[in-house]
């Protein structure tokens, strides 16, 4: 179990998290849903160690290797697609991961020559290339068209399921969440509360889950 306990986080005057606790099962995909601006990116940043909470503790994350598909692609503009992956995954073989997101043709292109969706796919390949234990994802598929999205999600699921990766996945899209996840957590606006939580949704009817979530949101 990965845990955050009694997290407290403010920005300037506004309290985003107050006495907030959350737990994630390891080796599965947990989706986090919640209204825009509630604090989902902030939560991922705290988990990834990029942001320190004002108070509270994290458990189970020590020594874990992270991959993070940020809300924007965050590529080095002066390096090619391949070099962008090599930047974080030195000598780990980039081609395999480029293939996974269908970008082997664009390996020597620069980010300025890519579309938004292509950049996001580079970011996905980069996150997988470091062979992470935990993958943080912040609406990673939002700029992909539906066919491409399905392909990439399928490829992605194959890897995360066979390699038993822990995935913490933020999205706005309920259908995407149900398709992607094993567990679902729905958050409310600040200070953030967990308003809905369901483990192992694969064993349940997805229509029922959807109805429950829609009712809450």
């Amino acid at each position, binding site marked *: 179990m990965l845990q955050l306990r009694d997290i407290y986080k403010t920005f300037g005057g506004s309290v985003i998290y107050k006495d907030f606790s959350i737990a994630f099962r390891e080796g599965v995909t947990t989706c986090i849903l919640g209204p825009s601006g509630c604090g989902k990116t902030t939560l991922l*940043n705290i988990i990834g*160690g990029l942001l320190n909470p004002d108070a509270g503790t994290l458990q189970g994350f020590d020594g874990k290797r992270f*991959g993070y598909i940020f809300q*924007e692609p965050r590529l*080095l503009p002066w390096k090619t697609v391949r070099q962008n992956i090599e930047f974080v995954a030195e000598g780990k073989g980039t081609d395999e991961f480029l293939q996974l997101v269908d970008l082997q043709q664009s390996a020597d292109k*620069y980010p300025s020559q890519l579309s938004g969706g292509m950049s996001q796919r580079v970011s996905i390949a980069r996150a997988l290339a470091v062979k992470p234990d935990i993958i943080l994802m912040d609406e990673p598929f939002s700029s992909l068209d539906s066919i491409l999205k399905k392909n990439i999600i399928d490829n992605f699921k194959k890897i995360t399921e066979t390699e038993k990766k822990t995935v913490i996945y933020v999205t706005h899209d309920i259908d995407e969440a149900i398709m992607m996840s094993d567990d679902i957590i729905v958050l409310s606006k600040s200070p953030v509360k967990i308003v809905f939580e369901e483990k192992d949704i694969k064993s349940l009817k997805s229509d029922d889950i959807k109805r429950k979530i829609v009712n809450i949101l």
Partner: protein
Amino acid sequence: MKNSTKNIIILASVAVMLILWEVAALRIDSEQIMPGPAATLTSTVGLFGQKDFVAIVFSTILRGIVGFLIAAMAGVILGIIAGINEGFNAFMKPWIVVMRSTPVVAFVLLALIWFSQSTAVFIAFLTMFPMIFTNVVEGIHNVDGKLLKMAELYKVKKIRVIKWVYVPAIAPFMVSGISSAIGIGWRAIIVGEVLSQPRYGIGNSMQLAQIQMNVDKLIAWTIIAVLLGFLFEKIIRLIENVTVKRHI
């Protein structure tokens, strides 16, 4: 616009310049006061044959290089510190403002009293340092914090982050700082030479020509100075093209 069209316009502009000059020379009709382009060209070429020509030009260039190296070294090192440390940046601010807004000639006059011989180097430093410093600081502030966070998450080694993130982000600012610094510094050195009168220098050769009422020679030296300035600019651009690849 096509490049060939642009080049034709540039050539036409130079032609107009030369024609206006020739017309003015014809109207004034005195080689002494306003020599025409042809006479000036002859004296410019003649300068190359002058016995101290190489010594004069190289003395000025050497002053420029020494001043530039000191300015660049101080500008880059202090610029990096100020870029990282806000307190140090605040400390540097008044110094930079004073250096940037004081007229060059005021520095020259003071430097004459304080340094006499190395005035031109001192002037070169004072004009170039603030430009390089300011650009380095700006370059560092311009490094994308989100890229740094990304590198932090992936635990990329510091040295690699410097090479792959910081250097490419700062380089364009550094090049533009250096290039404007050289433009301004080069002119300031020549002013410094006029007043400090070192043994050899383009500045004092100009002044000598002025005292002797050799207007053609004065303009000829000016042309040499402009050509050298232009050459430095080209060299910097060349270095920029080789080192700073732009894909943004």
